[in-house]
């Protein structure tokens, strides 16, 4: 790759393959979520039908995540001069019908689509309530391009930003532009990306590194995975731009081994970018070199913390260390190192091409741009959601998520994963940005957003997160290693019905100590889920310790099973009870011996008359 002209020629050629001028382009959502729902068999069937029927003008393209998990597997058909047709919940049988009716005869199969809108046209995903308030910037290409074909990326202005940076701008100009855009790190802490880059740029060193942190560990967040699976080149391009800006010739992508699809697509993308000359020696004839290597994590949440990540990259146990020195001064193998999160990087090429003013036109003054959230839990529309900063939680949950599942009452939304907190309905009108979420006792985190309803016990949720941090604490510092363990023991005690009011005080004291004295962010934030649930749901904690009741009927030890008058005496429950705790005559109401009952719930599941209740 020698010049921008060469890139532009490539783009012209690539557009010929990308734009549909004849026949059909059939796009199948093949991210992990799509594959889990059965997209692979759909893709195979499409390829099989294409071959069997000799459909030479039908192009079948795997793509990344379209965003709406509930409708997967999703197939979209693009034909010249016609509106796009979206098919949902596809399976091999449906594929056969779509091929014969739509691709061959030209009649879309209405019953597999989202139906007709008010204007009489077929509805697309964009017409759904789920998409109306979204603003897709980072996820723009996911679900549109083939992530395994670099030409698709080139066709939509891929690598133009890199060309611009290395041939028309100085490293300082790149950094100043990033500073002016106000982009803040999407990994959770929200530090200015331009500032961070300037620290490493200011250091003189024979070698510097830039690392993409793709160790997405929050259990319930998958934004980064979707970007890597759907648009891997945007991350490679951003790393090269960052490398140029700070003076690093080597980049690493530290990605979770649990993301095999993302890893494979990154490998393909790197090989293609090297072949085209976007990575390697003398990029765009600028004299700059840049290379990227993938390194796999091995299942340790703490490696999302930057000093632990560096230790892991060096081939050691992933344990964090004290800062300073900050990685920008002394990082990987003692050299200046910049670590950026996937979503942060995915914003970089777009900001470079469209300018800082464009970026600042979205979001709020202090948190410009958009943020991707993984909306999940007890909500109707689960999926990936990209919204401008400043949107309210209410809009995300009610307008985009369309309310809690099954009409249940909303209780709380959890953001920030194991480091964050719960937000209750009183704070739902808070505009989402880095600072506001901290002010209401939670945090942005990487973007997990889990909705909980009346059936979720908040003590149990706090226990769940603590269980996670105890498991994932690296063990280096005492407050985190021992403190979180003690907190978990107390929570176990409370959920087992053996807690006292004094335990709540001890929990709060411990939490305070752990927050103030832990070595890294993992320990410093680990008590947050407990503190925020105690703050907002003290009544639930008190019900557990004083009344020995779990108001949401979750904590097993605090529940009892009873047989109501609806019992017909069918004896089904007697037969399934493993401890022979149920007795009674045939055709008469049965009773459960509470001393023998182990609360397994088998009787309740077996009863066809809904005569067994739990309270």
């Amino acid at each position, binding site marked *: 790759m020698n010049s921008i002209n060469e890139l532009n020629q490539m783009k012209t050629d690539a557009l010929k393959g990308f734009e549909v001028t004849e026949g059909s382009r059939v796009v199948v959502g093949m991210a992990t979520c799509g594959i*889990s729902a059965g997209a692979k068999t759909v893709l195979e069937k499409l390829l099989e039908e294409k071959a069997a029927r000799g459909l030479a003008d039908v192009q079948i393209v795997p793509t990344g995540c379209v965003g709406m*998990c509930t409708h997967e597997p999703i197939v979209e058909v693009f034909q010249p001069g016609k509106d796009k047709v979206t098919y949902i919940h596809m399976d091999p049988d449906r594929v056969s019908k779509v091929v014969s009716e739509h691709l061959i005869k030209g009649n879309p199969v209405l019953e597999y689509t989202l139906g007709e809108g008010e204007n009489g046209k077929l509805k697309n995903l964009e017409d759904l309530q789920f998409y109306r308030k979204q603003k897709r910037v980072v996820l723009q290409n996911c679900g549109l391009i083939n992530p395994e074909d670099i030409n698709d990326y080139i066709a939509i202005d891929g690598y133009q930003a890199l060309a611009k940076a290395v041939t028309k701008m100085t490293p300082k100009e790149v950094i100043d532009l990033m500073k002016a855009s106000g982009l803040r790190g999407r990994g959770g802490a929200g530090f200015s990306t331009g500032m961070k880059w300037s620290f490493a740029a200011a250091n003189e060193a024979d070698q510097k590194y830039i690392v993409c942190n793709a160790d997405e560990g929050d*259990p*319930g967040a998958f934004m980064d995975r979707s970007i890597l699976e759907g648009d891997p080149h945007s991350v490679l391009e951003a790393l090269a731009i960052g490398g140029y800006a700070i003076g690093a010739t080597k980049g690493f992508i530290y990605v979770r081994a649990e993301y095999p699809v993302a890893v494979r697509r990154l490998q393909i993308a790197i090989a293609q970018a090297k072949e085209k000359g976007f990575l390697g020696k003398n990029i765009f004839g600028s004299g700059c070199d840049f290379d990227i290597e993938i*390194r796999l994590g091995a299942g340790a949440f703490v490696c999302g913390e930057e000093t632990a990540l560096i230790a892991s990259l060096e*081939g050691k*146990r992933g344990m964090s260390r004290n800062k300073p020195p900050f990685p920008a001064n002394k990082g990987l*193998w003692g050299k200046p190192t910049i670590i950026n999160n996937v979503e942060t990087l995915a914003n970089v090429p777009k900001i470079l091409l469209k300018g800082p003013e464009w970026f600042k036109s979205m979001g709020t003054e202090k948190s410009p741009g958009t943020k991707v959230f993984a909306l999940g*839990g007890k909500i109707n529309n689960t999926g990936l959601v990209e919204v401008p900063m400043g949107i309210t939680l209410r809009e995300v949950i009610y307008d985009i998520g369309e309310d809690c599942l099954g009409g249940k009452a909303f209780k709380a939304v959890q953001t920030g*994963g194991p480091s964050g907190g719960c937000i209750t309905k009183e704070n739902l009108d808070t505009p989402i940005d880095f600072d506001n979420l901290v002010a209401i006792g939670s945090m942005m985190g990487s973007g997990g957003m889990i909705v909980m309803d009346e059936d979720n016990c908040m003590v149990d949720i706090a226990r769940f997160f603590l269980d996670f941090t105890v498991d994932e604490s690296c063990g280096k510092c005492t407050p985190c290693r021992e403190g979180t363990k003690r907190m978990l023991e107390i929570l176990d005690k409370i959920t087992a019905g053996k807690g006292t009011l004094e335990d709540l005080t001890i929990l709060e004291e411990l939490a305070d100590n752990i927050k103030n004295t832990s070595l890294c962010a993992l320990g410093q934030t680990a008590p947050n889920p407990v503190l925020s649930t105690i703050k907002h749901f003290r009544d639930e904690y008190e019900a557990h310790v004083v009344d020995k009741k779990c108001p949401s009927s979750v904590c097993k030890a605090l529940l009892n099973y009873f047989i109501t008058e609806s019992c017909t005496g069918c004896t089904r429950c007697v037969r399934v009870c493993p401890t022979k705790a149920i007795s009674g005559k045939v055709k008469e109401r049965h009773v459960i011996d509470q001393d023998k009952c182990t609360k397994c719930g088998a009787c309740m599941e077996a009863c066809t008359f809904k005569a067994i209740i739990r309270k």
Partner: protein
Amino acid sequence: MQNDCGCNCNKTDDKRYAELKAYIDSVKNSQGITMGVLQEAQRIFGYLPLEVQKFISENIGVPIAELYGIATFYSQFAITPKGKHHIGVCLGTACYVRGAQKVMDKVVEELGVGVGETTKDGLFTIDATRCLGCCGLAPVMMIDDDVYGKLDSVDVIPGILEKYRV
């Protein structure tokens, strides 16, 4: 004759060691290769027995104590053999709030071993995984490469497990 790993394998005859050696030779000149070598070893052998750790130690010059430290730190590495089928019940937050614990309890009950353990017949290993990334299908369980979603009723679990017993 038994080796000190307790089995009858013979390193010189075992092609797996040659495969591992070839990998080590291919990366030997890079920095920070330890994790990659352990990952490759686990892929080849299925787990990291002491004998394999010794072999790696001799070949990359990292003390075995350090290797053992790494192998036991990261959850992905196993130092005991895994079952033929790997069951991963997602205990990510989205699955958890939708009842993943009930799924886990049922799997544990059916197989009679705990989380992280392998059944006596060597058929299944149960693991709790963190977010498989298909929250739309919550609660989710994975057996090998197959995904089972929307396990709202745990009654279907014995039937699913049965498919892997043949």
